[in-house]
Every structure is written in structure tokens, then in C-alpha cells.
């Protein structure tokens, strides 16, 4: 935050809290790799197909998302109020709207062709 002024004056160079131990980063890193490899293996080896495959990949993606939030982005840390959590919740609603809304609106194509 270049030159951003703080309310607690003269505190610009203070340490903004602990950013977690290296252990957490390593665990997060390994979990991310595992969660990336699983879908890759499933697709390359044709283990599943159709709906179960898509469902599994989606679950992996959501887990991956949570790992990012908790291990790397420190969602639970920070001063109150937790504006970032509110914004994130709104973001999830928006993403759902975009994806589900588009799928719903576009389904008419299937019924036409």
C-alpha cells in the first residue's frame, strides 16, 4: 500500500501481523497439486464419464478454491469488520447467477436444434 495513510497515524511501517507458518503454505501447496492431479488422471485414463466425472471435477475445484482462501489468502485473519468475507459471499452469489443464469437462458438452444 504505497503511501496509503492509516488512521492509527505513523503506523505505516509496523508489522501487519503474522502471515502463517511456512508449514501451512507447504500443506496448501501439496493439497493443491493433489487436487489438480486427480481430475487429470480421471480424464486421461477414462475412469469415469458423463455426470459423475463433471461432478467430481466440480467438487475438486471447490476444494481447491477453499484451499486458496484458507491456506494462501488468510481469509480468517485480519481486523474486524470482515468486509472481505462479505464481498466474497456476494462474489459467490454473482458467480452462481452468471453461470446458472446463462445456462438457463441458453438452454432454449437445445430445444430449438
Amino acid at each position: 500500500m504505497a503511501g496509503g495513510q492509516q488512521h492509527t497515524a505513523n503506523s505505516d511501517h509496523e508489522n501487519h501481523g503474522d502471515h502463517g507458518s511456512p508449514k501451512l503454505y507447504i500443506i496448501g501447496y501439496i493439497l493443491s497439486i493433489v487436487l489438480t492431479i486427480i481430475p487429470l488422471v480421471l480424464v486421461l485414463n477414462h475412469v469415469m464419464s458423463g455426470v459423475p466425472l463433471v461432478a467430481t471435477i466440480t467438487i475438486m475445484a471447490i476444494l481447491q478454491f477453499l484451499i486458496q482462501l484458507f491456506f494462501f489468502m488468510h481469509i480468517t485473519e485480519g481486523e474486524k469488520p470482515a468486509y472481505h468475507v462479505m464481498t466474497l459471499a456476494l462474489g459467490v452469489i454473482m458467480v452462481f447467477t452468471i453461470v446458472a443464469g446463462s445456462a438457463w437462458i441458453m438452454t432454449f438452444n437445445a430445444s430449438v436444434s
Partner: protein
Amino acid sequence: MLESIKTFASHFFVTGDPMIYGADASIVLVTVAILFVLTYFKKWRWLWDEWLTTVDHKKIGIMYALAAILMLFRGGVDALLMRTQLAFPNMHFLQAEHYNQIFTTHGTIMILFMAMPLMFAFFNIVVPLQIGARDVAYPYLNAVSFWLFFFGAMLLNLSFVIGGSPDAGWVSYPPLSELAFDKGPGENFYLLSISISGIGSLATGINFMVTILKMRAPGMKLMDMPLFTWSILATCIIIIFAFPVLTIALALLFIDRLAGAHFFTMLHGGNPMMFINLFWMWGHPEVYIVVLPAFGIYSEVVSTFAKKRIFGYKSMVASMMLISIISYFTWTHHFFTMGSGADVNTFFAISTMAIGVPTGVKVFNWLFTMYRGRIRLTLPMLWTIAFVPCFAIGGATGVMLAVAPADYQYHNSYFLIAHFHQVLIGGVVFGYFAGLYYWWPKMFGHVLNEKLGRWSFWFWNIGFYVCFMPQYALGFMGMTRRLYTYPHGLGWSSLNLVSTIGAFMMGIGFLFQGAQILHGIKFGKRDTTGDPWDGRTLEWSLPSPAPHYNFATIPQIKGRDAWWTMKEEMKQPGYKKEPVHIEPIHMPKSSGRPFIMSVFFFIAGFGLTFDWIWMGVIGAIGVGITLLARSFEYDTDYYVPVDEIERTEAALGRL
């Protein structure tokens, strides 16, 4: 050799239209004149130090405002050319191709390069002052945002004389905007210029959301914030969630054009309707992005000039927040006729009507604030009062359009054109004019001439109704939008002529505003108090224009209408001014890198427009290097020493 140069030049420069040759000549002349003036008066150093490298939010705001006014001129000239072409049946004022380019650039410029930067001007000039902050959360990023907008806008404007303007409409729907149907570089100009300036817009949204949430003066609770600041918070929420969708939609279309993908080409498994879907997922919220700050301006203006606290503060906040969320659930009403089926159309028709409710609540709150207030009919107040009936008509026709079955009749007709100009001019432009008049003293330290302003006001307002009321009727009579010319005998001729006359009246109104600005520079009444309107919010507690560090001491906030409360306190008998205790102020250093980085963005954009990959790569490398250089920079801030602050404050009579 000569022949190949000729072929190259004719591909590169737009030829064959006398008006464009005129534009070429005037661009060259203006450029030479600017270079001459800067050199003759030795202003290069000043320009670089004071403006091009600044990270001061007030200066950035002024640059946004000036750029937006210039773009209003350009977009307005486009509008007048179009109306001239349509004034009489079988007109041959413009060539068909040229006409297509003009309506495309008119829409693009007015929404993205006029309304958006003018709005960002208000973000920058007002928000930090209203919340008692010394700067925005990310001053460097703020400069990056401005220069990205600026060079994005330059890129689009360049298309007029180099390569040719986009001509697929400001919505740029495929398949019309796909390579197969639109070979020229114009469409690339459109995609790249909006993408480049869009990065800046998104960054501004993030910047001001953080500023408002984190940098309020001590004691200012969220529910103590001025309504303008609330409106900006609501706007930022929309920007953050809407702009990425636009970026993706345009990027996919660009990949289709540049790399031969088929996201939106039907014959290869793509779906052009997905583009329309994505575009309006940004496009509808965009309407609220530009109108919410105008609503914030009306709230400030009404309560200042009616000398009352705003009526229904909490319902105002609630309605703005509701608008910022519901606006995401209405986008399909832009393509009811796409054939998505009854369920889809019903859902979006109802959500569209629902968003009218909080908007109506706000209008009634303004009216109740005026009720029994001591109204002063200054220019900002005049524009606010003119907004109410204009927006009411626009809202009513909007609900007519929201009825999905009826929309099949209005779709793409002139009725729609009249409707959205009514809400965008009556809601947004009137609001931004009110804001410009209201905050002009804070920006430049002088008040604008009232008489010229009133001439401009009446020309604009009467011109507006003369221009757009006939268009509703024309829509019912079957005239469609984007129409190049029409034959005799359809009964459209007289209405079109009236509409054109109205457009020129608005043009005269703009000329009066130009005269007003020039008059203000020369003779404008100096504002020595810092509070020319007897204002209620914190920005009026500062001198006009504010010193670069804004507040010498950060104020302690005790409730809503902070400056009004302080003034009441000062009037109490036995009020003793507290001694001012000044400490060194922590400020960001200026930097030339945002400007240089944006130049590289421009180079990359220009190269990709003509498919010159090498030039695109050079630009991208330049962007990368400037980004990298920033991450190795540690010396980014400094402290303003106490004696400098004391000297400045004493000179302003504040000690």
C-alpha cells in the same frame, strides 16, 4: 515502390471523405498548436511534474473531468452529424458506412469515455474529502487507472482518421463484429480500447471501495457517511462484479478475430447469443454504475440547497444497496426477443420492474427533502429539479419496455432510443452537470457564471424534449434504430426534422457551458471561504482548492452532516477554537511510471489492432518491465514537514 507506399497508406489512413480530410487537418493543426504553446512558454517540465506524474487524487480528478468534457464534445458532434443525416428523407449528408461508424462511436464514447470518466472525476475529487481522508487507498494505482482510461480513449479516437472507426454498433454483436463480416481494423480498435480502459475502471472500483471502507476519519461510522459516498460504495460493488464479465466477453471476441477461434461463430459450434448474454451482464449493471453517483449528487445538492437534512437517509442507503444487487438480475430484458422462452422472460420482466421500486423511493425522498425547505435555485439545484420530471417519464417508458410481450413491439425501435436517452441524459448527464456546478469551486477555486449557466440550462432542457419526444412517436410509427435513411411518404419527415432541431438546441446549450468555463477562468468569482454554498459535508470545511495533503489535522466526526454540526458548534456562545496541533503528514511520491506503462499499453493495443504482432509484443514487454520495476521500488513515500504545512495553512488563513 511508390505504388506499395500508396497501398499501405490507403489501408492505414482513412481516405475518400472530405469531412475526414478536414478532421485530419484539424488534428494536425491542434497538435502543432499544443506543441508550440508548450515549448514557447517552457511548460514541458511543469506538465510532467505537476500533471503527468501526479498521484494527487484531486489533480487526477480534474484530468478525468477535462477529458470527459472533451469526449462529450466529440460524442455530441457525432450525435449532431447523425441527426443531420436523418433530418430529411433521402438525405445524402453522410455515406452509409460513415454513418454506421458514427453511431457506433457515439454510443461507445458517451458511455465509456464520457460518462465513466466524469463519474471517476467525482470519485476522485469528492470522496476522500467527504470522508476526511488525505488520499485514496492506492494512489499509485489511481494514476495507473487514469492513464489507462486516457490512452484507451485515445486509441478509440485515433480510429477516426487511422484505419477506420468500428461500425458494428456500440454493443458490437457477433456475427456482425466477427472477422468474416467486419474485416477492417475498426472493430479491433473498439475491442482493445475498451479492454485497456476497462482495466483502469476495475482498479478504480477496487481502490475506492477500500478507501471508503478503510480510510474514513475517526468517528465516522458507515451510517454517518454522506449519501454521495454511499452511492460511490454501491457503484464500486457493481464495478467490481460487472467489469470482469465485459473483459472476458470482449477478450473472447478478440480471440475469435485475431486467432481464429469460434466462441461466437454458429457454424463451428460457437454461439453468438452467448456474447449478447455476457455483454448485457455487464451492460445492464453499467447503467446503474453511471446513474448511482448521479443519485448521490442529487442527494447532496437537494439537502444543501433546501437547507435540510436529507429525508429518509436510511431508506436512501437501503435503496442504493438494493439497486446495486438487483441490477445484476435484470440483464435479459435487453434481449427478450432472442426467444429464451416464457419462463426466462417472465423472471427478468419482474426483476426489471422490481428495480423501479427503490428508484422511486429515492425520488420521493428528494421531493420530501425539498418540501418546506428553504430552496435556493442555484444551477446545481435547477438541474436537480429538471431531473425529476425527466426521469419520471424515462422510468414510465422503461416499465413499458419491461413488459416482455409488449417489448416485441418496441424492440430496436426509436421508442427504445428515446427511452434510454431520457434516463441517461435526464438521470446521468443532468446529475453530472449538477455535480460539476456544485463542486467546480472546490476543484478550481472559483464559481461559474450564473447567467450563462441559465441560458445553457434552458437550451439543454427545452432542446432535450424537442429532440426526444418526437422519437417516441417515431418508434410507434415503425422507425427502427441504426436507420441510415428513409423514403418520403412514411409520415416520419416532420417529426425527424423537429428532433434534429432539438439536438442542435442541446448543442447550443453545450456551447454556453463552454463559454461559461472560459468566462470562469477569466472573471470567475474567487471562492475565499471554501464554503460557497453553505454546505453540510466535510469537503466544504477545506479551502478551495484544497491543499495537496487535504486536511492539516484529521477531523473528529460526531455524526451525519459533519461540517454542518461543526458550524453549529462554532456558532454556540462561548465556543473556543481548539489549538491546531500539526504533525508531519505522510504522502505518496509522484511517479512517471503509470504514464509510461500506459504508453506501452497503447503501443501494444495499436499494434494488435493492425495485427502487427511484433508491435504488440514490444508493448507487452514494456508493460511487463514497468510492472517489474515497480516491485523493486522501495522509496515511494515521504513526510510533509510541519513548517511547510504551517506556511501553507497560514497563507490560506487557516491558523
